[in-house]
């Protein structure tokens, strides 16, 4: 029962991330989303009595709820750019797109994926929707940091999928993926610094030297 409350909350937080206009709010949204991902994982671990899932949950808490959001918030503060996200689509249109994406992933799941269990279909549709909205954030928000957050939202969606559908990936794989994600966020952060020093902005739509 708790699971479904958590899942719905994750979806609602994802919608919230689509409509926010400022960077710190987006980072906060990501932290909250990761927190609910942590809660979902714990509740699944409790239900299935799997020790590996507890460890995964702890990793989610340490990395995605504490370290990565702090790191991103730190960058935002340090480079002191304009905190506005630079929306390519305004919040009203964005939430409309998010709803359309939700409907599409619902259609995809119920027409294409051959699940027999209805609950499974719902969770799959929900995670697919989170992944698609992550992609949407990457494309329609113009700051370099928002692209990192979009990527992380997509990854959260994947973890949710792995936990809810497959009860987690094999343990070693899961740990390595965590490590990879963490390293990639740090490397991306370093590049944000470099972009900021070289270009004096972090607007990715203005990175247009290389063409054709």
């Amino acid at each position, binding site marked *: 029962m708790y699971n479904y409350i958590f899942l719905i909350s994750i979806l609602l937080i994802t919608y919230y991330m689509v409509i926010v206009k400022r960077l710190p709010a987006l980072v906060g949204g990501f932290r909250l989303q990761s927190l609910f991902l942590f809660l979902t994982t714990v509740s699944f671990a409790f239900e299935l009595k799997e020790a590996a899932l507890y460890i995964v949950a702890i990793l989610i808490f340490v990395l995605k709820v504490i370290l990565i959001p702090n790191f991103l918030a730190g960058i935002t503060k340090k480079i002191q750019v304009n905190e506005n996200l630079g929306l390519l689509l305004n919040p009203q249109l964005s939430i409309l797109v998010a709803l359309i994406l939700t409907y599409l992933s619902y259609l995809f799941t119920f027409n294409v994926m051959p699940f027999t269990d209805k609950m499974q279909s719902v969770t799959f549709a929900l995670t697919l929707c989170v992944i698609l909205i992550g992609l949407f954030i990457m494309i329609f928000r113009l700051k370099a940091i928002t692209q990192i957050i979009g990527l992380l939202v997509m990854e959260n969606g994947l973890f949710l999928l792995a936990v809810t559908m*497959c009860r987690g990936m094999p343990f070693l794989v899961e740990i390595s993926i965590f490590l990879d994600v963490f390293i990639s966020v740090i490397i991306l952060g370093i590049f944000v610094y470099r972009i900021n020093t070289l270009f004096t902005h972090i607007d990715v739509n203005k990175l247009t030297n290389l063409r054709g």
Partner: protein
Amino acid sequence: MILLCILSIPLLFTLAPLFVKKLRALGRLNAIGHLAVLVTVFYFALNINLPVKFFGFFYVDALSVFFLFVISVVTFAASLFSIDYISKDISGGFISEKKAKFYYALFNFFSFSMLLVPMVANLGMVWVGIELTTLASAFLVGFYNNKNSIEAAWKYIIICSVGIIFALLGTIILYYAVSCVATTKTLNWHEIAPLAKSLDANIVKIAFLFILVGYGTKAGIAPMHTWLPDAHSQAISPVSAMLSGVLLKTAIYAILRFSIITNACVGVNFTSNLFILFGIISLVIACGFILVQKRIKRFLAYSSIEHIGVIIIGLGFGGLGAYGALLHIFNHAVTKSFMFFGGACVVKKYKKDNLNVIKGVVASMPFCGVMLVMGMFAISGMPPFSIFFSELFILISGFSQGRYLVCGLFLALLAVIFGAIVYHLSRILFGKKPEELKAGTEALSTKLSFLFLLIFMCLVGIKVPVFLNKIILAALEILKGINHGL
């Protein structure tokens, strides 16, 4: 045990810059290390009975050995080429000594991550390995730390990460399909393959679509190729050769592993049609962009997209076509690295990279110029060089299956690309050299790296070496054998 050797050499050499003070010595040591990797892979392929499993973590069969061989040939050549290239970069004031050491550390870590990919048994670990190659090479793409290279590195890491997330989505969906039928949950591909027949066909098809789009992004298959020309043209040149030569192929390797399972489950037609479709799109896009390129390394990068197209079309044909495709993977790796080395020498000498401006390369750089003339014909697919033959195999297989439309398009596009390559390169190769440029030749290590690759280009064109033929045939058995259900 030998397997661990192959992995541990580059991993240990990642630390070498901490202990070796002199840069030239470091460069030489690096080349020796990669020679050792190459020799070990060679020894391994000849003397060990495949497949080898251990720790339940590594699983190496002929297909893996083939990719290991390709990777180690190209990394060895790149490490030879690096010696002089890096010292010229330092004397030219582009990078500091400290940064050069950083380069050697990353170079080794990059080659480690690429060697890891074909060795691991677990499809999830394959994903981790491929993500690791992106992370290791991101700083090598943005190495010069100027506006263009940082922009290229950013696009590279973002686009490839998104692509690879879709690949992970595909992997999870496949894992779900497996966990529905298997008693033990596993992602080890050699344990999944025997189960393939009992998997749900629709789920496997969807998983494969995500896999193809995801790893296809990393492999530079059009239309997901947009990061490739930027990254390959901005990376430091020995690394451009590795990116083009082998990084793309590790992603192809991952696609192949999944296609084996998919073929066993839903039949060959599904994957083969997809391969041919994406291959033709890649050829069309590469053809258009090659015609209008102005910069030499960008031009070579688009040529990589063309060859990736050729490879996956060959894989789509299957049979002799798949043989041609595997051979083409090797030939393209060797020839394209060769061309990137040549291009790098030209850019170093002329200090510009515009195809319209550079003139008289043969006159000003006799050795490198002659090499580039040969490379120009090799990369565009003229006999007696090796690429001609692998493309010929693919075409024969296509025509014998009666796929006239695909083969006709393939031939027409290759003809246009041939014209474009010869036109662009002959403009820079011939003509009068600028007055102020003194004719000069390259360092011995650079020459050796050219000659090392040239031997393979010519040798495979005359006759496929017995050793290579043996691994490719064994790898084909793996691709095919499971087609009939193990």
